[in-house]
């Protein structure tokens, strides 16, 4: 019979103050997890409301202006408060030092600061809700964002502040990965999740400052009218779009790369097989990071950039498909002849594979110039980015959540309910969003509150799907919270995984390891180690 360790990071030291002033990466990770889950809930509520409004044409629930504010809030919260910090700041913080056998990240104080900055930025962003919300869409395009009377400033200032939090996390991770790896852990013995965090951190550090200066320009433009983006004063609104997407395209890889890192872990652990093409997966993360800086113009095919530029951007966009494809093929090959066990994390990994592939392929459609001119700003785009962000990143996030949940708390969630919830989410997701590909190809424009009667059946179907999806999340919330208090004690290594975080008790002690671990085998050497037996012994 297992029992929980008496002392762990959760209760040593005790007291609220010890949490609020903690420099322990595990506690900071957990605090991030609370914060982003709150954001996810809030963004989700907005999503349910807009979906409900779209149930039938005309006004059902909220008026057109409120609708504009709600989809903006939904998008901005999901992007800046939830998905960008989600995997790196919550799971990355918690597991990165554990995975490389370190006691903490390189700059623990900066790490805590980044959490407070995140909270501050979120408060600014949320303050905008009280003061009239924002109705520009999450992209804050000029000239509308400089003219609308809604509270663009507190929102963009919030996003600006959140950027610092993101930069600090990225900076911290790069240094941690370079300098704090355990003895014997060479670059090519690092778990792939660490590689993914590394590539992500590079993008965070290089792209976020550009968003920062862009938003500052936007705010100054709004406050004092410097005319940088105002054509009437010799400025250029398209310049805003260039600046914005120079960040925001790479930012979509800030969102997806860490998710891919989790998938690499899950696929290997739950296939009990060495990951296929380790180096290819590691380098393709860096490849994606690099290419991501060269394709921002594909958001602007119809914004008035030159035809030549559009052609070049279109061409370069296809390159993103290569490293993404490399990853997908390697994951599938890893599963081939593995002994696959279908616990919840693996079910999420499989959902990821399926949904991300659809999201990625439709991205290639959109990268093709002529096709994009037709599909731009329709529901096709909405479906595409939900397949990537929710079908991709959120599925990976949920997979990671279930995978590391026993490590966080030392207790196991209910596998039975977890499977029910995966099923609901998977089905609900496809019902909600697959219908939108069809809607979009038929010409239903994005960001519209009202629509022609002919679109009603598909919209109704989509809204129905969002209820299944919502139900899946409610179930999950219940069994996960239940697990914290009542779950079966998990033991150090319930999955029989080989990375370092599973060699220390769950929940880990304050100092992470009793003694700094050394590399005796690679993170995926399931062929050399006998992992199935560890599975049995942890029960």
């Amino acid at each position, binding site marked *: 019979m297992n029992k929980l360790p008496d002392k762990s990071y959760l209760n040593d030291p005790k007291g609220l103050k010890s949490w609020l002033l903690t420099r322990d990466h595990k506690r900071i990770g957990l605090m991030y997890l609370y914060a982003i889950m709150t954001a996810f809930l809030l963004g989700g509520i907005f999503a349910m409301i807009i979906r409900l409004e779209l149930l039938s044409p005309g006004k059902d629930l909220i008026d057109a202006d409120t609708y504009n504010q709600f989809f903006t809030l939904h998008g901005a919260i999901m992007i800046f408060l939830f998905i960008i910090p989600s995997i790196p700041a919550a799971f990355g913080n918690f597991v990165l030092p554990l995975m490389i056998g370190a006691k903490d990240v390189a700059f623990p104080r900066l790490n805590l600061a980044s959490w407070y900055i995140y909270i501050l930025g979120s408060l600014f962003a949320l303050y905008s809700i009280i003061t009239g919300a924002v109705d520009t869409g999450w992209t804050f395009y000029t000239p509308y964002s400089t003219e609308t009377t809604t509270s663009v400033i507190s929102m963009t200032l919030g996003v600006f502040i959140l950027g610092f939090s993101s930069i600090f996390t990225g*900076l911290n991770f790069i240094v941690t990965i*370079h300098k704090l790896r355990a003895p014997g852990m060479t670059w090519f013995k690092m778990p792939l999740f660490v590689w993914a965090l590394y590539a992500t951190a590079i993008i965070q*550090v290089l792209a976020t400052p550009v968003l920062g200066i862009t938003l500052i320009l936007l705010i100054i433009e709004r406050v004092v009218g*410097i005319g*940088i983006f105002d054509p009437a004063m*010799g400025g250029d609104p398209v*310049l805003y779009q260039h600046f914005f997407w120079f960040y925001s395209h790479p930012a979509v890889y800030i969102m997806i790369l860490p998710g891919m890192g989790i998938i690499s872990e899950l696929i290997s652990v739950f296939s009990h097989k060495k990951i296929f093409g380790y180096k290819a997966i590691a380098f393709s993360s860096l490849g994606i990071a690099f290419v991501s800086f060269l394709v921002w113009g594909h958001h602007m095919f119809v914004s008035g950039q030159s035809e030549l530029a559009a052609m070049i951007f279109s061409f370069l966009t296809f390159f993103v498909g290569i490293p993404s494809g490399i990853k997908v093929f390697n994951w599938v090959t890893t599963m081939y002849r593995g002994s696959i066990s279908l616990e919840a994390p693996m079910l999420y990994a499989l959902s990821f594979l399926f949904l991300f592939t659809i999201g990625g392929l439709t991205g290639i459609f959109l990268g093709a110039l002529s096709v994009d001119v037709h599909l731009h700003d329709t529901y096709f785009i909405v479906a595409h980015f939900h397949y990537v962000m929710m079908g991709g990143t959120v599925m990976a996030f949920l997979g990671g959540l279930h995978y590391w949940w026993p490590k966080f708390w030392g207790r196991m969630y209910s596998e039975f309910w977890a499977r029910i919830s995966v099923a609901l989410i998977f089905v609900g997701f496809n019902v909600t969003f697959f219908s939108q590909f069809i809607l979009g190809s038929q010409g239903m424009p994005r960001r519209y509150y009202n629509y022609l009667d002919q679109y009603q059946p598909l919209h109704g179907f989509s809204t129905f799907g969002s209820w299944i999806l919502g139900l899946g999340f409610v179930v999950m919330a219940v069994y996960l919270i239940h697990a914290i208090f009542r779950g079966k004690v998990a033991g150090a290594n319930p999955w029989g995984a080989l990375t370092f975080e599973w060699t220390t008790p769950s929940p880990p002690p304050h100092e992470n390891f009793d003694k700094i671990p050394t590399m005796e085998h690679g993170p995926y050497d399931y062929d050399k180690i006998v992992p199935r037996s560890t599975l049995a012994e942890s029960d």
Partner: protein
Amino acid sequence: MDQTVGHPEFLQHHFSDVEQQRESAKLGMWIFLLTEVLLFGGLFCAYSIYRSWNPEIFHNAHRFLDVYLGTLNTVVLIVSSVTMALAIRSMQLDRKKQTLIFLIVTLALAAAFLVVKYFEYSHKFHLGQLPGKFYTFTGIEGTNPHIFFSVYFLMTGLHGIHVIGGMAVITWLIFKTRGRTFSSQYYTPIEMTGLYWHLVDLIWIFLFPLFYLVG
């Protein structure tokens, strides 16, 4: 590792030795400086775009900047970079008093830079050479001459904020140096501030010719 002499006070618990801690700080600082370069990079980008669209305005407007004051400030900042470097060197040699003097001189030079900038700014305010819709000056030909001043105030303003930030950190260093926190064994914060200060200097070295000199 060669850590036979116990755990020095300044060594944080999660590092195994002083060298690792120092190296980490350095790498972190370089990455931070990179983000600063990108932050300014956006503005340099805006500068080159608006300059290429309005070559004449930029030419006519730049003559209203005072090259003498600009040169003076360039010299001030370069000297302050030198004194900053000397402060680090003194601490490496354990000469605390000397470090203190160099830090104070650096701080004074930074303040001098801001004073000069203040006079330049207030002169422009007085003439109405202000950014955007506040622009009232009539002495420059061409459409939208305010663009030049928008970009000028944005870039020098952001740079000025960095000078002020640097002054805050240097002030903190002065107190810490007096409080004997640093020694030839541990002077990383001074060294890191030095790196930052050189970057601030370097950015000005780009701003100066771009605004004051090229016509």
